[in-house]
C-alpha cells in the first residue's frame, strides 16, 4: 500500500497558501522579526515569526463569522485552504482529523483559583471545534509529542490508512507564539535575540514561530495509480534517546537508530535532508553526529527554521510539505542563516538555492522527552 500526500496548505507570516510560502522561501524571505520583551510581557527581547492578527481575521472572515481563538482560526483556515481544489469529503465517516499541537489554546489558560474553568484549553476541545467546523463527527485524535508532533502525526496517518478503516486523513499542525512558550524557552536560555543560524558557528539558539499546516493523506494499492510528481511517505521511524528529558543525546543515538531503520530497506539514494536544525548548540551538534553516523554527511542538508522559526506542533508537517514541494520543483532550498560550519562533524549544508533533479528526501525532527522522528519521502518519477 502506498500512502501519498493528496493535498496541503501552509499558513505562516510568509503566506496563506503553500505556493505563497514556497515562493517567499525561494526568494530568501523570512517571517522572523525582532520583538521587544514587552510585546509579550517576558523579560528579554526575542525574535519570532508571528502571523499578523488583522490579516488572519480578514482572511478568516471570508469563510466564517465564528468568533474563535487565533489557534483554531489558523487551523481551520489551513484545512479549508488545503481542500479548496480537492474532492476530499471532510464530513465523511471515513475521514479522520488528526490535530498536531504542543500547546493549542494555551494563551487562554487561567490560574487554578477557586475552580477556574480551563475547559477551552483542553486539546481535545480544540480538535473537536476544528473537525466539527467541517461537519466531521469522528472523535478526532490529537498528537502532542513535543517538537516531533507534526511528523509523528503524518506517520500516524500512514499507519491508520494502512488499516483500511479510513479513506482520508487530515493532519493539521498548529501552534501560536505566546508568553507561556517564549518565557519557557527563555528560561531554558534556548532563544536567540537574532534570526536563528542553524548549523552555523555563530548560532545562539532558536526562534519560535507560529504557523498552521495541513497535509491530507490517502492510500492506493499500487504505485501505478499515482500521477508523476506525487509524493509518498515511503518509510518512517520514531525513536527515543532514553537519555534525558530536555537535553539532546550527546551521541545522537536515538536519531541514528531512526535513520538506520529507514535506510536499511530499499534503495538509499537520498537527494537531500531537511533537518530539524533548530540552531541551538546541542540540537544541531546532535544531528551532525547522527547524520554522519548514518553515512549521510555528504547529502545536501538544510533547515527551514530561519524562514519560519520553530513552529513547534506545526513544524514537522510544515517542513514535510516544504520538502515535498522542493522535490516536486527539483529545487534545493538554501539553509538560511548558515555561513560557517559550527558542528564537530561538518555536513553538506545547502548555501545557495539551486535546481537539481530530486527524487527522495529525509525529514527529521527531535524534541523534549528525548523523542526523534524520521520520514523518507519519495517522488513518483515522470
Amino acid at each position: 500500500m502506498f500512502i501519498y500526500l493528496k493535498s496541503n496548505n501552509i499558513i505562516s507570516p510568509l503566506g496563506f497558501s503553500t505556493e505563497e510560502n514556497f515562493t517567499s522561501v525561494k526568494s530568501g524571505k523570512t517571517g522572523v522579526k525582532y520583538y521587544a520583551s514587552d510585546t509579550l510581557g517576558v523579560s528579554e527581547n526575542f525574535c519570532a515569526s508571528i502571523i499578523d492578527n488583522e490579516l488572519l481575521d480578514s482572511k478568516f472572515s471570508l469563510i466564517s463569522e465564528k468568533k474563535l481563538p487565533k489557534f483554531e482560526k489558523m487551523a481551520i483556515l489551513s484545512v479549508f485552504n488545503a481542500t479548496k481544489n480537492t474532492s476530499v469529503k471532510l464530513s465523511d465517516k471515513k475521514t479522520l482529523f488528526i490535530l498536531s499541537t504542543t500547546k493549542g489554546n494555551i494563551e487562554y489558560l487561567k490560574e487554578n483559583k477557586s475552580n477556574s474553568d480551563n475547559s477551552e484549553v483542553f486539546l481535545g476541545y480544540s480538535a473537536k471545534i476544528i473537525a466539527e467546523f467541517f461537519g466531521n463527527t469522528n472523535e478526532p485524535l490529537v498528537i502532542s509529542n513535543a517538537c516531533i508532533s507534526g511528523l509523528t502525526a503524518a506517520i500516524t496517518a500512514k499507519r491508520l490508512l494502512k488499516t483500511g478503516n479510513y479513506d482520508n486523513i487530515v493532519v493539521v499542525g498548529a501552534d501560536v507564539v505566546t508568553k507561556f512558550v517564549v518565557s519557557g524557552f527563555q528560561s531554558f536560555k534556548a532563544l536567540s535575540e537574532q534570526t536563528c543560524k542553524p548549523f552555523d558557528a555563530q548560532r545562539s539558539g532558536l526562534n519560535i514561530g507560529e504557523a498552521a499546516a495541513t497535509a491530507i493523506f490517502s492510500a492506493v494499492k499500487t504505485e501505478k495509480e499515482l500521477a508523476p510528481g506525487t509524493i509518498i511517505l515511503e518509510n518512517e521511524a520514531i525513536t527515543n534517546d532514553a537519555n534525558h528529558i530536555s537535553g539532546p543525546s550527546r551521541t545522537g543515538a536515538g536519531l541514528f537508530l531512526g535513520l538506520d531503520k529507514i535506510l536499511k530497506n530499499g534503495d538509499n539514494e537520498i537527494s537531500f535532508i531537511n533537518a530539524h536544525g533548530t540552531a541551538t548548540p546541542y540540537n544541531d551538534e546532535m544531528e551532525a553526529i547522527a547524520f554522519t553516523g548514518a553515512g549521510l554527511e555528504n547529502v545536501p542538508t538544510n533547515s527551514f527554521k530561519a524562514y519560519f522559526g520553530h513552529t513547534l506542533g506545526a513544524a514537522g508537517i510544515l517542513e514535510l510539505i516544504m520538502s515535498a514541494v522542493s522535490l516536486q520543483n527539483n529545487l534545493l532550498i538554501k539553509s538560511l542563516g548558515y555561513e560557517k560550519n559550527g558542528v564537530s562533524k561538518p555536513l553538506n549544508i545547502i548555501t545557495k538555492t539551486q535546481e537539481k533533479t530530486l527524487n527522495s528526501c529525509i525529514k527529521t525532527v527531535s524534541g523534549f522527552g528525548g523523542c526523534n522522528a524520521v520520514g523518507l519521502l519519495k517522488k513518483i518519477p515522470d
Partner: protein
Amino acid sequence: MEKLIIELKTEIIKVLNLEDITIEDIGNDDPLFGDGLGLDSIDALELIVLMEKDYGIKLKDANQGRDIFKSILTMAEYISKNRTI
C-alpha cells in the same frame, strides 16, 4: 558566610526537589554536578533562576554557571560578592 551556606543548601534542596537529602549530606566543597549531588542541566537552569530570585544576580549565559555552580562554596562566594538583594 556560614549563614549564607546553610540558607543556600536549604533552598537548593527545596527548589531542586532533592528528597531524602539533608543539609548535612551536602559538603561545602562537594561537586554539585556529575558524581557529587548528581544535578543535571535543568537543575543548572533552575539555579540560575534561584540566583536572580533570591539574590538579584542575573546570569545571561548558561555557560557562566559552570564555574559558579561548582560547589556550594563557590556559589556562596559568588553571591556574597555580586548580590544586589
